């Protein structure tokens, strides 16, 4: 039987990883990545020889950073990809690859110097004295040896005294290998009158050394100080200088980016200080508890503190000030000596900061990894950043869940924690240029809600997964189960990061859900009507998402990992890890009885029901489509594509039905039940609907594509194969929605009934679930095999669509048509002229003048060898003009296009004339040259007219 444990139970904080070292690592990685990104950008800005900064090529290409969305600008640049590349290579060159790495390397070098130099500075002769200088009788030394032995230290650390510090404390610095404890004067003065306080302080410091806090803390301090010197100060100076010297013409487009640059620096200061202080507060409680375990008297923590502030405002201010302190409040420290609960909570601030760090690392590191060939670098980046975030958030979640279960408290659902994580990730997007580029806000800021939602769902899932595994786990330690859960969360988070970066951000930038409008506006392709319906649009988007790396493995993970928990044989006695975590206390089966696992049979039944519903839905769809079936031989694309989309809808119905039934039955672990049932139902429905579709024509009212009965798997397989990935993804989305809806409805009902009449759930320990262990394992095995089977099958062709979608983006026929203001047009033309137009015109002017001069001087007789270079020159100018950007003004472009065509004609005619020694043809080429010059003049005249008042270099064509 499950027993309710007393709430006074104290969990040993060492029974699972603290997760604080990885939080320090996250900070260091964030600082290094930010260093490379910010200083790399500044270095690049300084290397721009022209005066239009990083906007020049974009404007010359017809982009509109002033009003256009980020997506419009990306399309504008990519629509003239070759010209854009040539322009950036000339005017906005990317520094060599090593420059991007040089800054972080410099940062590390400075940090190393500080790390090694700080202890020497803190322990310098003019600041402290060695203990031996005042400890003549060796009494203090003997005490320290005793404390070091109690703490299990291999040797007594170096001890110095700061006689001018009046506080009754001490501090440790240096490194784990060579720590130095500095005793404050006040502590020494009190040694005889308060020996217990002296012992408490020293044991606390020994605990810091024993826990290995010294190196990580001072590495973080050193890296931060190095960041301030190498990045923060130079970057702020640069941003302020750039903002002051900004060209009025470009101000509207430059100002948001510069402001964000400054905001990013301010954000980094806040983030690093808050995150570091939060981790340090955690480590202090660890050290306090260790000191007490080693014999320190808790009265050593009886520090007189001021009364808590009165009034909401003062309390809020005090709470805010508390966030910046490296030590917790004394009352919290005293409470934590008896109860470790403070070390197991999931708090909002660290989650928010971790969310921000996730976005900052992911986006800023992209600048480095995207320059390395191959997608592996990109995937490695995603894996590393997702791994860090998982380690920080996942460990906190698992600790919180395990503590709640061990102390029979209510396990947090994780939604609030997810909201903070998601909010952090979304806010992070607003301080980098990822989705905003040249604007204050992205084109569709509302889409950032998706990021918050993702945070909620991932944390909700991870929390339930942790809860499930903590309930069933029977090993000696909880770590293996935790590692499994963290690995699963890592994969899911990696999938999210990948999708967000390669697809999600484009939706925020303005990409429509209906991709047809994007394709058509960019003249990529004419899209048939068949692709305009909502189901087809959903299908196409899901297909793109399923093609992302990690997407389908993550989908499978979402339901395989919880499913595996049913493999574990129910516990007959208290699990070993519970004994360990409670240090042999009053152990029992952990958890509250009402949090019992849902029955696997219920999930399976829901899956079968869902599969049947999907099968029935497809039958219904086929019956409906049968009424519109085209005549034999006249099957339209519209009809066929619509049919594919409706098959996907039928599979979605299967998942939705199963998820609703399973989550409604489950009461606890609703999300996991919904995911497992939806996954199994999708696989079942997939098999059922495939059979139905393959035998199309055999049931006359359901005839859809064919009219004659036959078994045609080869006909339906390509369709089903194509749909498998989207269907699995849809199943997950639908399951999450269903579980959320059911959970919300259940909460409303519960509130309406009142907590007093909450229905008691019969306590059913894991051992009493109906199917025996063997049957359960068999079912789990079958379901896992099915999950793996469909995932592998779907992945065998999912990559094809990804390649296709990437190919499509580089061949846009024309930039997206959008209204451009007169002012922007003028700036575009000015820069177009400055970045290459003027040079082309000048080359043409010089060549024509010399060519006509040659003809005049020749007086009817010219050697071909003297003419031929001009012919080649005209052809070269025409080719270069064709390779350069289109003129951003349509009227000027029209003249310019004629100019290029005519000039090309001049070159060819000229070449023919020299080849044939044909004077008439040469004269003809001169006539063509006059025509080309007229077009060129018309183009430049139009540009001059447009740019009147702006500093356009004027040269006649």
């Amino acid at each position, binding site marked *: 039987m499950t027993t309710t444990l007393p709430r006074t139970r104290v969990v040993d904080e060492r029974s699972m990883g603290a997760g604080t070292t990885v939080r320090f690592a996250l900070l260091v990685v964030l600082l290094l990545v930010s260093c490379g990104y910010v200083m790399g950008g500044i270095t690049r800005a300084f290397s721009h020889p022209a005066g239009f900064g990083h906007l020049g090529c974009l404007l010359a290409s017809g982009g509109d950073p002033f009003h256009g969305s980020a997506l419009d600008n990306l399309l504008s640049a990519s629509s003239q990809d070759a010209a854009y590349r040539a322009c950036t290579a000339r005017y906005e060159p990317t520094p060599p690859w090593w420059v991007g790495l040089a800054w972080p390397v410099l940062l590390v070098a400075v940090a190393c110097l500080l790390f090694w130099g700080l202890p020497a500075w803190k322990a310098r002769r*003019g600041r402290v*004295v060695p203990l031996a*200088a*005042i*400890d003549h009788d060796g009494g203090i030394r003997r005490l320290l040896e005793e404390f070091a032995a109690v703490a299990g230290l291999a040797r007594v650390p170096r001890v110095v*005294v700061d*006689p*001018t*510090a*009046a*506080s*009754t*404390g*001490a*501090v*440790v*610095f240096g490194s784990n290998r060579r720590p130095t404890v500095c005793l*404050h*004067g*006040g*502590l*020494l*003065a*009190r*040694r*005889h*009158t308060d020996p217990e306080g002296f012992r*408490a*302080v020293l044991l*606390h*410091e020994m605990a*810091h050394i024993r826990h290995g*806090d*010294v190196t990580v*803390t*001072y590495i973080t*301090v050193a890296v931060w100080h190095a960041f301030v010197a190498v990045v923060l100060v130079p970057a702020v100076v640069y941003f302020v200088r750039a903002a002051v010297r900004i060209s009025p013409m470009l101000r509207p487009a430059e100002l948001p980016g510069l402001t964000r640059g400054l905001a990013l620096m301010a954000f980094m200061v806040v983030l690093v200080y808050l995150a*570091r202080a939060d981790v*340090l507060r955690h*480590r*202090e409680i660890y050290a306090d508890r260790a000191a007490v375990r080693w014999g320190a008297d808790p009265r050593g923590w009886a*520090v*007189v503190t001021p009364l808590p502030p009165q009034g909401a405002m003062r309390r809020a201010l005090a709470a805010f000030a508390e966030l910046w*302190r*490296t*030590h917790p409040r*004394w009352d919290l*420290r005293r409470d934590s000596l008896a109860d470790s609960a403070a070390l197991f909570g999931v708090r909002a601030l660290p989650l928010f900061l971790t969310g921000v760090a996730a976005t900052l690392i992911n986006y800023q590191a992209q600048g480095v990894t995207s320059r390395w060939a191959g997608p592996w670098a990109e995937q490695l980046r995603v894996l590393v950043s997702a791994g860090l975030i998982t380690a920080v958030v996942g460990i906190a979640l698992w600790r919180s869940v395990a503590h709640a279960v061990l102390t029979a408290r209510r396990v947090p659902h994780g939604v609030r924690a997810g909201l903070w994580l998601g909010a952090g990730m979304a806010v992070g997007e607003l301080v980098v240029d990822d989705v905003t580029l040249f604007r204050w806000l992205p084109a569709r800021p509302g889409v950032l809600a998706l990021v918050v939602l993702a945070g909620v769902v991932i944390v909700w899932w991870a929390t339930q997964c942790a809860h499930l595994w903590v309930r069933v786990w029977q090993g000696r330690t909880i770590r293996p189960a935790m590692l499994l859960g963290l690995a699963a969360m890592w994969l899911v988070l990696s999938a999210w990061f990948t999708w967000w970066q390669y697809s999600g951000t484009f939706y925020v930038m303005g990409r429509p859900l209906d991709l047809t409008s994007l394709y058509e506006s960019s003249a990529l392709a004419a899209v048939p009507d068949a692709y305009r319906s909502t189901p087809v649009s959903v299908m196409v988007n899901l297909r793109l998402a399923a093609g992302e790396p990690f997407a389908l493995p993550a989908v499978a993970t979402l339901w395989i990992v919880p499913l595996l928990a049913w493999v574990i044989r129910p516990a007959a006695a208290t699990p070993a890890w519970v004994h360990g975590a409670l240090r042999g206390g009053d152990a029992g089966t952990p958890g509250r009885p009402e949090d019992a696992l849902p029955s696997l049979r219920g999930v399976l039944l829901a899956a079968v029901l869902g599969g049947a519903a999907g099968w029935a839905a497809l039958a219904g769809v086929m019956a409906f489509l049968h009424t519109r079936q085209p005549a034999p031989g006249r099957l339209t694309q519209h009809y066929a594509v619509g049919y594919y989309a409706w098959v996907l809808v039928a599979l979605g119905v299967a998942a939705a039905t199963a998820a609703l039934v399973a989550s409604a039955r489950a009461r606890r672990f609703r999300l996991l039940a919904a995911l497992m049932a939806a996954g199994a139902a999708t696989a079942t429905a997939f098999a059922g609907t495939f059979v139905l579709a393959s035998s199309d024509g055999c049931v006359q009212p359901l005839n859809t594509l064919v009219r004659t009965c036959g078994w045609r798997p080869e006909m339906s397989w390509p369709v089903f194969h194509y749909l498998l990935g989207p269907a699995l993804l849809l199943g997950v989305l639908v399951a999450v929605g269903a579980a959320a809806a059911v959970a919300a409805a259940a909460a409303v009902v519960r509130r309406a009934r009142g907590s007093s009449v909450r229905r008691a759930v019969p306590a059913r320990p894991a051992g009493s679930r109906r199917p025996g262990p063997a049957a359960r394992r068999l079912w789990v095995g079958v379901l896992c095999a099915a999950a793996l089977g469909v995932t592998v099958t779907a992945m065998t062709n999912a990559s094809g669509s990804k390649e296709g979608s990437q190919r499509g983006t580089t061949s846009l026929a024309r930039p997206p048509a959008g209204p451009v203001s007169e002012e922007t047009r003028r700036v575009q033309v000015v820069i177009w002229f400055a970045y290459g137009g003027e040079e082309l015109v000048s080359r043409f002017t010089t060549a024509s003048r010399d060519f006509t001069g040659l003809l005049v001087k020749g007086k009817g007789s010219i050697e071909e060898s003297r003419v031929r270079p001009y012919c080649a020159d005209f052809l070269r100018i025409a080719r270069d003009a064709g390779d350069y950007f289109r003129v951003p003004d349509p009227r000027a472009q029209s003249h310019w296009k004629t100019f290029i065509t005519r000039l090309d004609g001049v070159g060819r005619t000229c070449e023919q004339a020299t080849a044939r020694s044909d004077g008439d043809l040469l004269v003809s080429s001169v006539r063509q040259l006059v025509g080309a010059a007229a077009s060129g003049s018309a183009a430049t005249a139009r540009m001059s007219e447009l740019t009147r008042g702006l500093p356009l270099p004027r040269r006649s064509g």
Partner: protein
Amino acid sequence: MVSGAASSGGHLISGGPRVRDVVRDVVAQVAPEELPLVEALARFDDASVVRRLARRGGRREPLGFGLGEIAAMVAPVVWLVVDEAARQLAGAVASRAATGTRTVMRRVLRRPAAPVTVPELTREQLAEIHRRVVESAVQRGLGDKRATAIADAVVTRLALTAPGAPGAPGAPAQGTQEPPGSGSTAGSGTPAQG
């Protein structure tokens, strides 16, 4: 104001007792448990000691025990008051700005500064020091009685160098002669009151 004292490099090099000796003697009398600290402080030059003792409040350092209690200690009170009095009485304050460069140079060259010494004091000056010690000690959390005891000890020790005092400069403050303004002389009053 005070005869027999001269200023050199901002530090007084007259034949009076050194501030650090006064502090040591007073601490040995009223707070012997702080003697190791005084010994440690004596390894620094006076300017460093005064500058750092004058800092109020604790520092929040990572991996410290936390901003706990500030110990109410005798040595900082005595050192700061006596040092300040010695400097003021010798008129060294006026030349402090000029000595900044010398101080820096001395630090660069790692030359120890000469210790500050206390010039001979009049009864009024001793009374003023007594008042300051009491005030400072109370401010730093020492009780009234303790503050008065410390002030008495300081004045007693300084009085040994007063004109006509039998003790030689630097002699321990164990003399039997009652200093001006001491509790026994002034009854219930303090020098400031007397």
